């Protein structure tokens, strides 16, 4: 413990029990260090994770939250909710590498003055042993308010840069010899498989085309018969890989309708706006989009009666960034031809052929199952697209639309366990490595809010980061910690509501694996509070809005991570 180090500790005490316990410790003269400053809140359930992150951001070295013993809460259920929220928050803070001794929850009743002072003494001692909150303060001091790389105008240490690693990138003039990527940079967990992998029954490439045809006919009928005032689907873009979501009002507009392997956008978020228009809107939803629609229905954001859902088969969606990451550029007009396990691309630099899985979206590799959760009719076949992380080959031995047997969202399909493989890999890293990993990833964030605006669960009319209620600079990282706070708080707001549709990672221009935050929360919820899949059926109650008497204590995070 550095000598002379005076930790800054913030204590949130609930007015009825722990604040009274603190007073009792005071009146019985049971001393504890002066570094602890107490903030009174009506109940432990009033402590918003933003307060705790704000305290860390403003230089606190430790934050402790005290509340009544579970069952004794003056508001009867307050501390149960607080217990769940804090457990998930501490688990996330531990996940990004903040030493988990830094935050703690303690239940202190009004009669336990001695316990209060003893807890405070223990906590201060623990924080002193951990020392100053070096990681976060470093981030604040070095990362000045300019973005990480711009030269700050203060002094520049002249030092001889020896041995800067320059990649073996080759840049010869004619015909780009592209440096082979040993690990597909932006598709975190999808490993490029070898060509002769995967044996599938039906020709999927042509299957999507068949689906498109039948979709067009059916949608035209819907518009014709007046059953639907408008149709929400995808419109053909300039090239094959950039279909854009669009509303179609009449038959001839449907000519531009397209449904191909690049239609990755989740259309359920547009249904919020469509709920305001009069007449029925027919919408084309992939299996993973229906989870989001269910969730929006639970939250009364969409109107079921004004929606006609066509569940469309899905063979796993591709993204151009997957193709680009393999150095394929200069694609000619409609030069992409997708078969079920290969993609043939005609480019100005010669023709290329790549593995279909390598361009597939990360979420399709761990698909939750091809069963539509809500639909009025089904068109087209799906094909299992889960990829075993280890072999990279498709594990989909099951029939094309793998049925989801038990209620826990496809525990069967082996692809599902891979969903948390990446989270588990990071959890095994040491706290320091985790912090390095996330600082590095999130330092690329340019605060463009694409992840927030595309997310069907993040559908607030006015986002808390836009208002000045928490006076956060929504647009710029005036404090580098804020990028992390933005992403943690966003993940927290959608915890229990996020259907893991993977849109946030798909749209991130800097390809930050944002889905890790949401999956970490889903994994924790499954482990601590029982298997729960948001949107599995409409009307399900999110784990953060319910509790049981025997929930795990927040200290479970410290025990669990005693290992690494």
């Amino acid at each position, binding site marked *: 413990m550095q000598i002379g180090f005076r930790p800054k500790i913030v204590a949130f005490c609930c007015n009825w029990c722990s604040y009274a316990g603190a007073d009792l410790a005071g009146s019985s003269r049971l001393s504890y260090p002066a570094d602890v400053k107490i903030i009174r809140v009506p109940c432990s359930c009033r402590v918003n994770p933003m307060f705790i992150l704000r305290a860390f951001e403003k230089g606190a070295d430790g934050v402790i939250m005290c509340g009544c013993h579970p069952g004794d809460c003056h508001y009867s259920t307050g501390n149960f909710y607080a217990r769940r929220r804090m457990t998930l928050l501490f688990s996330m803070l531990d996940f990004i590498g903040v030493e988990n001794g830094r935050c703690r929850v303690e239940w202190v009743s009004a009669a336990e003055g001695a316990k209060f002072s003893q807890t405070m003494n223990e906590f201060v001692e623990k924080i002193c042993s951990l020392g100053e909150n070096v990681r976060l303060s470093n981030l604040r001091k070095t990362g000045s308010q300019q973005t990480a790389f711009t030269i700050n105008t203060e002094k520049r240490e002249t030092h001889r840069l020896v041995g800067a690693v320059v990649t073996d990138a080759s840049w010869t003039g004619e015909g*780009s010899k592209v440096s082979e990527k040993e690990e597909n940079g932006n598709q975190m967990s999808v490993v490029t498989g070898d060509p002769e992998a995967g044996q599938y029954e039906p020709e999927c490439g042509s299957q999507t085309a068949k689906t498109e045809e039948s979709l067009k006919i059916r949608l035209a009928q819907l518009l014709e018969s007046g059953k639907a005032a408008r149709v929400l689907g995808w419109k053909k873009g300039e090239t094959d890989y950039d279909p854009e979501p669009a509303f179609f009002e009449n038959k001839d507009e449907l000519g531009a309708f397209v449904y191909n392997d690049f239609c990755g956008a989740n259309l359920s978020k547009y249904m919020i706006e469509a709920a305001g228009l009069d007449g029925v809107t027919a919408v084309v939803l992939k299996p993973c989009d229906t989870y989001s629609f269910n969730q929006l229905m639970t939250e009364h954001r969409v109107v079921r009666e004004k929606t006609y859902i066509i569940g469309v088969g899905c063979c796993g969606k591709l993204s151009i960034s997957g193709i680009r990451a393999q150095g394929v550029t*200069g694609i000619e*007009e409609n030069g992409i031809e997708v078969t079920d396990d290969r993609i043939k691309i005609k480019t*100005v630099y010669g023709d290329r052929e790549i593995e279909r899985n390598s361009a597939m979206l990360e979420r399709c590799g761990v698909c939750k199952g091809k069963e539509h959760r809500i639909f009025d009719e089904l068109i087209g076949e799906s094909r299992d697209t889960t990829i075993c992380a280890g072999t990279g080959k498709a594990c989909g031995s099951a029939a094309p639309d793998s049925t989801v047997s038990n209620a826990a969202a496809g525990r069967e399909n082996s692809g599902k366990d891979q969903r948390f493989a990446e989270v588990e890999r990071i959890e095994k890293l040491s706290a320091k490595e985790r912090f390095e990993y996330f600082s590095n990833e999130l330092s690329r964030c340019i605060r463009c809010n694409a992840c927030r605006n595309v997310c069907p669960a993040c559908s607030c009319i006015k986002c808390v980061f836009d208002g000045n209620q928490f006076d956060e600079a929504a647009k710029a*990282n005036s404090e580098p910690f804020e990028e992390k706070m933005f992403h943690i708080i966003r993940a927290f707001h959608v915890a229990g509501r996020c259907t893991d549709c993977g849109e946030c990672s798909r749209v991130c221009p800097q390809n930050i694996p944002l889905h890790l935050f949401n999956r970490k929360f889903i994994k924790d919820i499954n482990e601590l509070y029982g298997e729960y899949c948001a949107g599995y059926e409409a009307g399900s109650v999110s784990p953060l809005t319910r509790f049981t008497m025997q929930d795990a204590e927040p200290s479970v995070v410290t025990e669990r991570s005693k290992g690494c």
Partner: protein
Amino acid sequence: MLKISTDRINELMDAIASKMDLILPVENNGQVNFGIYESGVRVRLDALKTVKSAKDAFFPQSETLYSCSKDLKNLSVTPAKLMDRPFAVFGMKGCDIRGLEVLDRVFLSDPVDGFYKARRENGIVIGMVCNTPWESCFCKAFGVDCTEPGGDATACVVGDGLFIEANNEKGKAFLEMISEVLISETLADNCIMRDTVETVSKDGTEKTALEDDKEQSVSKDGTEKTADADDMEKLRAHKESIRRITEKLPLMSLSLKGWGTETPKDRFDSPLWEKLYKPCLACGTCTFVCPTCQCYDIKDHDDGDSVRRYRCWDSCMYSDFTLMAHGNPRTSQMQRFRQRFMHKLVYYPQNNDGIFSCTGCGRCIDKCPQSLNIVKVIKAFEKEGKENV
């Protein structure tokens, strides 16, 4: 003209970095962005497009303007220090450099933005010839020649040689500085120093200055480099091949008829905007990756004892961009969507004698979550123009 073999790039970068800060395309977990050159960093000169343009080096995403401290009653304002040290930005492509010229017209026009001006004066821009233009590039439509990027100096990689030629005085001074460092570092063994007296003319045909410098070609390790003439030939052939490739790219032949200064009056009220804007999410991706977006916001940040006012990028697509206390002139997303493209293709050219505020880099095409972009807007109006004309 400086030629250095590609596997000695490391020393070149060290040389530059020892003198001044160096910013160049750097890879971080598969994403190539402009970043400061320091040890342990993966340089990716071969990457065509970075996610964010190098605009960040001259007009940073957030930058302190001044901090104002208050003791008891009186306020004291201390402006932030302007950039006073030279720095080099290596590897900017033609579209980025044109983006800088577009920004110059904004920030260097009267009244001059001091912060931007200081960075522009101290910054040395080393352009780079594009090696593999993507299909989303359409810089030719805006008159940007990707083989002649411009900037203070232009670098081009041909075969295993990296050629850097100075385009102006600043570029020349920069090359001299490098060559001194390279000589002093006894690294000059296989790099030929060329001092081109006058700038190489655009079409690169007659280079009078080159002939008489031939005897200066010092090659320490004794391998006699082939005459520099065929280097120049290889360079020209390489540029020619790149130009031929750009012809074949689909979007390069985009026509801008009906935009810029001769935009029809009623384009503002055209019903087409209503159809085009629908999928837009109002996120700020297109504006934050665009090399020419100039809009910024000024906000406060309370540092405890003093208040720091800083400038940060803002996006006209955000809902609170024009929000005032008593209302908002642009309430619907359609108006904001229209404003973005009208500014790029109509208002800016009207204020800056016809130069478009778009350089055709194609970043917004690559990065828009819902695949909306400026090319679709132009083509939509082009189609609409054909129908009812």
